[in-house]
C-alpha cells in the first residue's frame, strides 16, 4: 500500500470525529503538563509522545471503511483493518519526525526558545515527509 494525500476524504469525516481527535490531543497535552508538574520533567517528557490520537483515528478509519463496504452490500472486514494499519504505518513515520523534533529542541532550546520550536517543527515536517517518500521509493 502507498500512502497518498486524499483531500476528498476530509468531507467523509463527521464533525464530532474531528472533535474527538482535537479533544483527545488537547486533553493529553494538559495531562502531560500535570504529570510533569507532579512527577518531574523526565516522566512528563515521555507523555508528550503518548499515543493519544492514533487509537481514536484507527478505530474511526476502520469503522468508516467497514460502513462503506457494507453500504455497497459487501461484508469485507479486512479492508477496514488494512486502512487502519496504513494509518498506524503513517504514525511510525511521524514518530521518526517526532524524534527529530525533540532532538532539535534539545540542541537549540537554550540558545533561543522561539526559534527552537520553529526549527523543530520544520525538521519534523522534513523528516516525516522524507520518511514517507523513502517508504514509497522502497
Amino acid at each position: 500500500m502507498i500512502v497518498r494525500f486524499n483531500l476528498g476524504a476530509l468531507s467523509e469525516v463527521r464533525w464530532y470525529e474531528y472533535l474527538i481527535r482535537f479533544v483527545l490531543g488537547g486533553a493529553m497535552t494538559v495531562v502531560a503538563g500535570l504529570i510533569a508538574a507532579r512527577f518531574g520533567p523526565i516522566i512528563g517528557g515521555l507523555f508528550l509522545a503518548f499515543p493519544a490520537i492514533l487509537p481514536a483515528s484507527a478505530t474511526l478509519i476502520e469503522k468508516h471503511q467497514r460502513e462503506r463496504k457494507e453500504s455497497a452490500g459487501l461484508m469485507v472486514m479486512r479492508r477496514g483493518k488494512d486502512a487502519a494499519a496504513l494509518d498506524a504505518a503513517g504514525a511510525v513515520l511521524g514518530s521518526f519526525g517526532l524524534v527529530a523534533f525533540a532532538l532539535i529542541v534539545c540542541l537549540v532550546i537554550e540558545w533561543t526558545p522561539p526559534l527552537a520550536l520553529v526549527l523543530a517543527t520544520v525538521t519534523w515536517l522534513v523528516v516525516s515527509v522524507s520518511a514517507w517518500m523513502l517508504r514509497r521509493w522502497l
Partner: protein
Amino acid sequence: MEAHSMVLGALALAAYSWTVCLLLKKLMVPSVIATIVALVVWFGFAFGLSAMLFDLT
C-alpha cells in the same frame, strides 16, 4: 530534560504504532483492541528506555 525524555517517548510511539500496524495487518485484531493492547509496548519502551538512561528514583 523534558525534550531529552520526549525523544524516548517518540521512540516508544514508533514501537507502539508498528505494533498496532502488525496486530491489524497480520493478526486481524480489531483496531480498538489492537490500540489498547499495544499500549503495553509504549509503556514498556518508554519506561524501560528511561530507566536505562535516566535515574527515575
